[in-house]
């Protein structure tokens, strides 16, 4: 019985399903953990809220620093985003906590950008400092790390050189994974405008990266 072909087929049929189920479980667990922390934070637990901060502060800073071309201003925007999240814990209406925090951070970044229009600052004044060094694991390849660092630098410099509207749309679409409709709602413009900003922004990025595009061509799948 055990070596019957039907049993083998049944086992083979189950195998590919296992991995996605595990992934879904992991996502569910993270989602459940976030909701528990949020609920505890709503009940007044600062530790629970700071648990959420610990979980998402790297992600939010990486998101905001691409939108606000000044590290200090990006830092202020992220801090303001967490303040706003803490003040508005009750406004969370379910769904993904990460997405909720990302939206708050994007709004804070856009507010910061509007503020910056009134008080212009030197974009990326610290491009050459060590803060751009990505965290390297023990098995990191130095050459790959150096290429990655160089990619990050030129890409961020190019991002800083395009218009804020195009930059925001590109970061939200390409980095954060929002769709056109979500970006339209977040930025308060039409769907066509969002598409136009992304298309034109990519063309502008490519123009500014004309001499360095060889760094990125290997990424295309």
């Amino acid at each position: 019985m055990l070596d019957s072909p039907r049993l083998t087929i049944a086992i083979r049929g189950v195998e590919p399903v296992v991995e996605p189920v595990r992934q879904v479980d992991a996502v569910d667990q993270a989602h459940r953990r976030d909701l528990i922390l949020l609920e505890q934070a709503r009940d007044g637990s600062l530790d629970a809220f700071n648990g959420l901060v610990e979980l998402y502060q790297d992600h939010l800073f990486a998101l905001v620093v691409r939108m606000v071309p000044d590290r200090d201003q990006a830092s202020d925007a992220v801090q303001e985003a967490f303040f706003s999240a803490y003040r508005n814990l009750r406004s969370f209406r379910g769904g993904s906590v990460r997405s909720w925090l990302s939206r708050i951070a994007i709004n804070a970044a856009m507010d910061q950008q509007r503020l910056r229009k009134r008080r212009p600052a030197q974009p990326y004044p610290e491009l050459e400092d060590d803060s751009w060094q990505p965290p390297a694991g023990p098995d990191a390849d130095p050459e790959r790390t150096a290429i990655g660092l160089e990619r990050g630098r030129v890409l961020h410099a190019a991002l800083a050189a395009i218009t804020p509207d195009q930059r925001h749309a590109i970061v939200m679409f390409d980095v954060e994974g929002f769709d056109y409709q979500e970006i339209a709602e977040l930025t308060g413009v039409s769907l066509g405008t969002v598409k136009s900003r992304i298309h034109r922004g990519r063309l502008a990025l490519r123009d500014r990266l004309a001499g360095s595009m060889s760094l990125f061509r290997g990424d295309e799948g």
Partner: protein
Amino acid sequence: MPAPSLHAAHDPLLLAAHAAGDASGAELERASALVATCPECARLHRDLRALPLALASAPAPSRPRDFRLTPEQAGALRRPAGWRRLLAPLSGARSAAGPLAASLAALGLAGLLLGSGLNVGFPGGSATSALAPQAASSGETAANGGATGNFDTATGANSGAGGPAVVPSEQWAMASTAPSAAASAAASAAASSGPIAVVSSAASAAPSAAAPMATGAPIAPSPGDKTSTTTGGSTADATSAPASSGEANFAPARPAPSAAPAVPAPSQASSGPSPLVLLGFALLMAGLVLGILRIAARRLV
């Protein structure tokens, strides 16, 4: 077939839309033809497809500081500012405002129902509530018959009705001009002050639609009662003259020359709605206001 030298004339936005997967129909065909035939367009298309991948995988600078909130920051953020501070006590999950509002509203509603229920079930106010619509309808009938009412009789009838919020005073004015309505109005005016015999005497003095209702009241009248006789006389006066005992009650400053001077005090005791109804109304309003404030606080603070 486009030549490479013509690349400057090609539409880069079309290629960008194609690279993003947003081109369709004729645009898609044109973009595909450009990518297939123009090496520059093909390179641009390849670069535009590579950029999103590079952006998503590019390292970001490390965060300069920890963004966890200190207890002082959290305390400052928890404190509402300005007018929100006033609503803050009502917004908490454990605030007693919600149950208190519900209790007040329920008590108020009960008071209102009980107050009006007492008016129906007991002699003190039963005649007023029960006869009010009756008098109103008979007043309309009287008006249709050519009877005219005036304000003085309206107030007189109103005192009997005891419920100005239920029936407009104009209707009461008309009601008091008709004999049957005057009987009921006078009856209710007297009844609300206590003597039940008035109902009977009024009903017997003016045989109308109101009479059966009055005589059908649960408490039997006493025909030989002195008050009954007096009030019956006053009812007759009120029927013939506009100024009734009710006027003496509601508008004592206004002289009523045609009113009978013998109108006694009973109607003076029946002024306005009962304290229970007033209390119920006040409690209901307080509960509603508190409930609205609670909802506003939960939404805004």
